[in-house]
């Protein structure tokens, strides 16, 4: 029986990342998908499976019609938004490993800046007050920045992490974006002072520059078997492991009701599974791509994966470990703050490029890349 590690990402594609794409979300999905399929040296007729987010507006059959595909035999959608961005690859890889599909297209596309903005209060969003009061929205938790900050604040409090500490991650991410031509903030690095003088979005946790972008764009990937990958156009990138972890007492976004909010418990437990499945450890990871809708996530995720001890991410970052020449380069594309926010999926593409050796900020001899979205993650490596 084949396993997830018998699969590979063989094609990647994307549109430009912008603030106003000027075209439909379906067109963005189609452009990114076709680019990924062609990158692999395949045609749309070679695709027999599709995976995306439950939150994606693009219907599988609409995309199938647009691409001119003949038949689809597998569809699956991952819940939990960006937290499960890495789970899309687990869903695709599981389908290929089981034989349910031969080649799965993974896509995510939206106009998240020119269309519905995730960062703005949305009266019809998380819950509708027309149905009466609720436990969160009614109390003023009406944007992701606020919803998440209520647990991040506890982390900052417990370990004495300051907003300036958060700023040191942002400066690093923006430095990486500054030398990545695909990044929205290409050529626009910031200083710690720029960060510290940006306005509060959620006092006392997040300033403007701690928040990810709102972006328009689409990305796509093709997953097939590692055996088949050897015959395709690009060097295949093995899915050495891919998993999720969701724990008793946990919730998505409104994750307030467990005893200790100063760690990402799911990241810790997911990591145990990633190491067990791949036979690798922290020391084998050359690059880490970490989903960061807001800067504190990087700190909690680094600690959850065991790259440093709890409360020590601020020192790990301050000491330069996550820069391009550090011991663990993080978010080499500029991350979701610097490159663009395609719901975390653009970070997977960067992981593939690092293993292929084609990233704008290529890390020399990068062999294994951890792509983490807190509660879903994967390790990418050579075939």
């Amino acid at each position, binding site marked *: 029986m084949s396993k997830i590690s018998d699969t590979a990402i063989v094609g990647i594609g994307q549109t430009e990342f912008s603030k106003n794409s000027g075209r439909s979300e379906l067109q963005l999905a189609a452009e990114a998908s076709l680019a990924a399929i062609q990158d692999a040296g395949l045609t749309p007729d070679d695709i027999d499976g599709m995976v995306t987010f439950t939150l994606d507006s693009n219907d599988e059959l609409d995309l199938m019609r647009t691409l001119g595909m003949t038949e689809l035999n597998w569809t699956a959608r991952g819940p939990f938004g960006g937290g499960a961005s890495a789970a899309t690859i687990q869903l695709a890889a599981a389908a290929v490993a089981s034989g349910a599909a031969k080649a799965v297209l993974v896509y995510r596309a939206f106009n998240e800046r020119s269309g519905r903005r995730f960062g703005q209060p949305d009266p019809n969003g998380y819950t509708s007050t027309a149905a009466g009061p609720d436990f969160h929205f009614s109390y003023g*938790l009406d944007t992701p920045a606020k919803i998440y900050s209520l647990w991040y604040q506890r982390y900052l409090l417990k370990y004495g992490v300051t907003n300036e500490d958060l700023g040191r991650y942002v400066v690093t991410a923006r430095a990486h974006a500054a030398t990545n031509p695909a990044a929205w903030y290409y050529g626009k690095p910031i200083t710690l002072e720029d960060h510290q003088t940006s306005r509060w979005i959620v006092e006392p946790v997040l300033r403007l520059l701690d928040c990810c972008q709102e972006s328009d764009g689409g990305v796509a990937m093709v997953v097939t078997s590692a055996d088949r990958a050897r015959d395709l156009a690009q060097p295949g990138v093995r899915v050495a492991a891919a998993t999720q972890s969701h724990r008793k007492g946990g919730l998505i976004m409104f994750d307030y009701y467990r005893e200790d*909010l100063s760690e990402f418990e799911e990241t810790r437990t997911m990591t145990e599974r990633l190491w067990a499945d791949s036979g690798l450890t922290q020391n084998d990871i050359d690059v880490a791509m970490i989903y960061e809708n807001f800067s504190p996530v990087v700190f909690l995720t680094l600690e959850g994966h065991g790259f440093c001890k709890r409360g020590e991410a601020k020192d790990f970052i301050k000491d330069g470990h996550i820069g391009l020449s550090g011991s663990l380069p993080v978010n080499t594309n500029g991350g979701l703050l610097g490159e663009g926010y395609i719901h975390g999926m653009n970070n997977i593409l960067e992981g593939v490029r690092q293993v292929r050796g084609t990233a704008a900020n290529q890390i020399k001899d990068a062999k294994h890349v951890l792509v983490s979205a807190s509660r879903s993650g994967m390790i990418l490596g050579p075939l």
Partner: protein
Amino acid sequence: MSKDDAFFWEGAQEGRLLLRSCASCGEIAHPPLPMCPHCHGLEWGTVEASGRGTVYAWLCSKHPNQADDKGRIVVLVDLEEGVRLVSNLLDTEIDEVTAGAPVAVTFVEVDGQILPQFRMTGDSA
């Protein structure tokens, strides 16, 4: 509001902070659930909370693009009953909130709904 939490808001209308407790094992579930995760019972009663607790975490909720929004303080309150609530903290400034500060419930009309909210009591924790 749903079938599972209507009791909470109805209690608030009467100035009572009600929590859902399992009729079989007494487990308190908040946010409320349709089945007791401890014993799988489907019969629920309510217990009236004392309304006393301590601050666990907090932030100031303002509109992201409206600088003149006065904002309100959102807190996580750990109730004496061992349950955590999201609520608002009234009559204080964000700089004055501290972890573990004792708070007490009050019932306030916001946008036509009665919400349980909290004030710092000034007692020692």
